[in-house]
């Protein structure tokens, strides 16, 4: 086999990447974890995690990531900050090209690039981002003390964060395009019991308006009626889209939304290339299965390496 810089490169340092890194480093692979921002990924913006086993009292997303990173570090997982702009996966040697021009080669690759918040794609959204338009309740919620704000969405994240935001906001109105929530029962019950949360059903936000900051939004219900709602903040929590821009999707295998399809061992269609975590095509995107998939992918990488010897 041709000489490469690494036996395994892990692309992305969220729960899936850190767990893959833990397994690979503990098994003494020559492994590098590449992260373009800071390790943690989307978990960092999660206020509180009550469903990751082993932490009976729950913990914050950033505390969980600190623990995962520390655990991987105990086995000397090497990490590097760098933005990959191109991947070449056609040959046995996988090549990654960084923005800096640096090239890294590896025998195997685990893609853990994750997902990012979906946007509404409406007027005013981009211009007012950071000025009242937010995708992160834990980051930005406290700026809206005693104000009236909106949450868009009906899934777990939207409903959990709507409840969290009532710690600060005097009123949180959830705008949902259907008449029932997709969020899990326990979250729904908590939200319905919270007097500061109101719901507007069967409606879409069609524009966000304001001079320097968000002042109001326009919504349209399913009967086509439009109205204006005054609000200083709008939290858009409507699911995620895959971070797949640099990936050769056709070669790897991907679903219609651009998430990567793998087999049960997290293997893509390209030999030696695995995917784990939120970038994978799947129905459940939780920290626990992201981490689990990272472990499975690392073991698949080891199997591949031993087969190549």
């Amino acid at each position, binding site marked *: 086999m041709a000489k490469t810089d690494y036996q395994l490169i892990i692309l992305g340092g969220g729960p899936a990447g850190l767990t893959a890194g833990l397994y690979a480093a503990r098994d003494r692979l020559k492994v590098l974890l590449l*992260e*373009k*921002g*800071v*390790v*943690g990924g989307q*978990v*960092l*913006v*999660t206020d509180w995690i009550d469903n990751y086993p082993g932490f009976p009292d729950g913990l*914050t*997303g*950033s505390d969980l*990531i600190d623990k995962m990173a520390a655990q991987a570090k105990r086995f000397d997982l090497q990490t590097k*900050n*760098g*933005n990959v702009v191109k991947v070449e996966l056609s040959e046995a040697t996988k090549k990654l090209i960084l*923005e*800096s021009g640096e090239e890294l080669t590896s025998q195997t690759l685990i893609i853990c690039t994750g997902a990012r918040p979906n946007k509404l794609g409406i007027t005013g959204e981009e211009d007012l*981002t*950071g*000025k*009242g338009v*937010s995708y*992160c309740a*834990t*980051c*930005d919620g*406290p*700026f*809206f003390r005693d104000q009236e704000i909106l949450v868009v969405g009906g899934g777990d994240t939207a409903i959990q964060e709507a409840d969290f935001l009532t710690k600060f906001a005097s009123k949180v109105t959830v705008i949902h395009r259907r008449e029932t929530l997709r969020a899990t029962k326990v979250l729904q019950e908590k939200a319905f019991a919270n007097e500061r949360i109101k719901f507007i059903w069967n409606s879409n936000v069609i524009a966000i308006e304001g001079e*320097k*900051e968000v002042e109001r939004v326009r919504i349209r219900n399913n009967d086509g009626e439009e109205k204006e709602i005054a609000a200083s*903040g709008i939290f858009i929590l409507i699911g995620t889209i895959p971070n797949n821009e640099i990936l050769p999707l056709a070669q790897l295998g991907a679903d219609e939304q651009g998430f990567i399809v793998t087999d049960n061992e997290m293997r893509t269609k390209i030999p030696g290339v695995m995917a784990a975590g939120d970038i994978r095509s799947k129905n459940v995107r939780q920290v626990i299965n992201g981490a689990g998939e990272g472990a499975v992918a690392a073991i698949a990488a080891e199997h591949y390496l031993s087969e190549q010897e």
Partner: protein
Amino acid sequence: MAGENVKHLTDAEFDEYVLKADLPSLVDFWAPWCGPCKAIGPVIEELAGEYAGKVQITKMNVDDNPTTPGKYSIRAIPTLILFKGGEIVDQVTGAVGKTQLVAMLNKTV
């Protein structure tokens, strides 16, 4: 934990220390409750060491110091603003990586 190279600013110190400074200043607006802010903390520490004498690397806790964030319409954190000669020269929001921050600083220094 604050390294000795990172100055923790208060509202009262801001004008004197940042706006009237000879050196450019990077201000990391953060709060203890913000996960991404905590995550970039070590990056800020590293930059403070590497840019000592070239850029003042500072942090401001937005909970304890509401005036300055209000003045700059900050409603999302972490927000990092690079000041030079009393003016904003660059600004970024979110847990960006070290590479991106280095590129931002090197454009100005």
